């Protein structure tokens, strides 16, 4: 599907055998390495001994619950990015999870494409370079300090929100970002709009950065979200 990021080592800590097996298989299919722990204690010892890029932690686990596991890891100085999976999907549960030291929170039931996109973004954040002041994708250039956007020799005029949308997409260039990720990170809303409100924003942005250029940069990834990337895959 989108094995765009370099191979990752993942640890999945989930007690429901069926969904755990499904996750391991799905991650392996897109080229990542996934280990599995069935309870909180096993998960904690594996997370401490292994060198993982991202931990995917179910919130409710036998022996030790997910939040306490993350708490112990953070206390011991382990900064591996953690994505919390939980059947509790309400805003305050999310806040609780992030406060406990989680880096992202995905309520169940989720689409695998959504989980994969989020895990890849987390992993990049973990090992990636420091925040750059200028993002470049092909001939598209975004200067985060002067808020200047140019494609080739053409200066582009973007609304403030369009700028932030493009900034987020370019920060994760080459990676899939989902509609919910955009709504959360660009607009800071955590609800689920019933309409295709994000798509409209994307198509406006697209008409500004891609219209009239031969090589489109902003791609729609079917069933997942969007990606900014030089060249057609």
């Amino acid at each position, binding site marked *: 599907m989108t094995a765009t990021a370099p191979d990752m080592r993942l640890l999945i800590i989930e007690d429901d055998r069926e969904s755990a097996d499904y996750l391991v298989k799905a991650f392996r299919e897109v080229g990542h390495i996934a280990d599995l722990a069935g309870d909180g204690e096993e998960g904690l010892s594996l997370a401490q001994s292994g060198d993982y890029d991202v931990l995917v932690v179910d919130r409710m686990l036998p022996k030790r619950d997910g939040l306490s596991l993350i708490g112990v890891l953070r206390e011991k100085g382990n900064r591996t990015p953690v994505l919390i999976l939980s059947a509790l999907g*309400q*805003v305050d549960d999310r806040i609780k999870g992030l406060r406990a030291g989680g880096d992202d929170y995905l309520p169940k039931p989720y689409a695998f494409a959504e989980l994969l996109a989020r895990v890849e973004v987390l992993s990049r954040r973990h090992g990636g370079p420091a925040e750059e002041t200028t993002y470049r994708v092909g001939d598209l250039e975004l200067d985060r300090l002067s808020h200047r956007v140019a494609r080739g020799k053409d200066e582009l005029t973007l609304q403030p929100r369009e700028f932030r949308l493009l900034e987020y997409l370019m920060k994760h260039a080459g990676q899939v970002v989902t509609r919910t990720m955009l709504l959360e990170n660009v607009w800071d*809303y955590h609800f689920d709009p019933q309409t295709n409100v994000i798509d409209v924003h994307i198509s406006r942005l697209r008409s500004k950065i891609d219209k009239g250029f031969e090589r489109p940069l902003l791609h729609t990834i079917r069933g997942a979200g969007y990606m900014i990337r030089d060249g057609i895959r």
Partner: protein
Amino acid sequence: MTAFGKLVRTTAFRLTLVYLFLFALFAASLLGYFAWNTRRMITEQISTTVNAETGELSEIFGRRGLRGLVGNIENRALRPGANLYLLTTPNGQAVAGNVGSLAPGVMGTIGWSETAYRRLDDQDNTDHRALVLVTQLSSGFRLLIGRDLEERRRLFGIVAKAAQWSILVVVVLGIGGGIFVARRVLRRIDAMTGTTQRIMAGDLSGRLPVGRSGDELDRLAGNLNAMLERIEALMTGLKEVSDNIAHDLKTPLTRLRNRAEEALAKSATEGEYRAALERTIEESDGLIRTFNALLMIARAESGQARGNMDDFDAAEVANGIHELYEPLAEDGGMSLRVKTAPVPVHGNRELISQALANLVENAIKYGKPVPPAQPQGAVISLDAKQILIEARRDGNQVLLSVTDHGPGIPETDRRHAVERFVRLEASRTQPGSGLGLSLASAVATLHGGELRLGDANPGLTATLAIPALKGVSDRLAAQTQDVPQKVA
């Protein structure tokens, strides 16, 4: 437990016993104090007169010698109801007086003493008691003057009897009253217990008997009845909701299952399978959305989201939602505008944002102007296509409203429109869960406000009315006058 045992165990009865004990103690100490004081007064009186008489007689003895004294004593002793007198020689022989016998040794001690005595002229052989003063005269004679104590004893007897009777009466009346009160209370409590047991057994329509006296038991019964009323309403609501949920989740679930079955039976090519699976995923996503919305409503209604509230400016929420939905509205041939003044509120920003987003989505979906009946020359004005988001303050309330100029909702349907899963006839053709207004309404209720649906002539004005943040109202009132309204 026997009826009596139950009675004795009542609070009223126990309280009566405590009061009874305290009252008896009080009565006894009052009477005791009275008796003791009287006795002291009588004794004092006796000693004063006896002292005076002793002085008188000593003087007579000094002036007129033994003979004069004896004569005087004999004189005095003969008076009726008189005091006790006795004069003895140095070797103890009686010389004059009216004392027949004394307790032994009385004459031997100089000073005050209490003694049993008998008069010379006594007919009955009963002993009396007296308070006597023995003085030593010169040349060894001793003089005894005393007063009978009968009066004091009688007074004491009267007091003791009064004490006995009053305590008896207090105890009898107290226990009787206690039983009466306890039985009255017990009867009413028993009636209430009976009703509550029936209610617990499942008859939620039962109500506690409320008397007319307006006492504490009546107030308690009244409050419990109000509580039962609320519980019954909640239970009815819950049942309605679960019926609705069952219906509205079962329908798409059935559709989902049918599609999967059909695909399994009829699909031949990979493409057909793929299409069926994609439809299945779409359908389950819709189900998940519905389910999330239901959970959110339940959460807002149960007040759980109250823990996550802070102070913020509702105008920012209005501007944010405007910014998010403006392109969508434009795509739908509408124009979305916003008009705000600073309106601080205390609440859950996320929920208020979502509620407002729902109202805006509704306006975009259903707020398209109705084409006029005569098509010729009919141009729908730009204004009619405008949706306005407004954040303003009205007295103690903050109003977040969304106004469109579509067909609106007939007044008779407005109440109905807020209910869960209700999709008015006009909206059935559009996608949606029928939960948008329910959520907005639940969010308003959570914040102590309400969702109002009004007429925009033509069109609909949906307003989230929530209480303004207290404490900043004056500062804000001053502020809103200075700051020009922001119109985007």
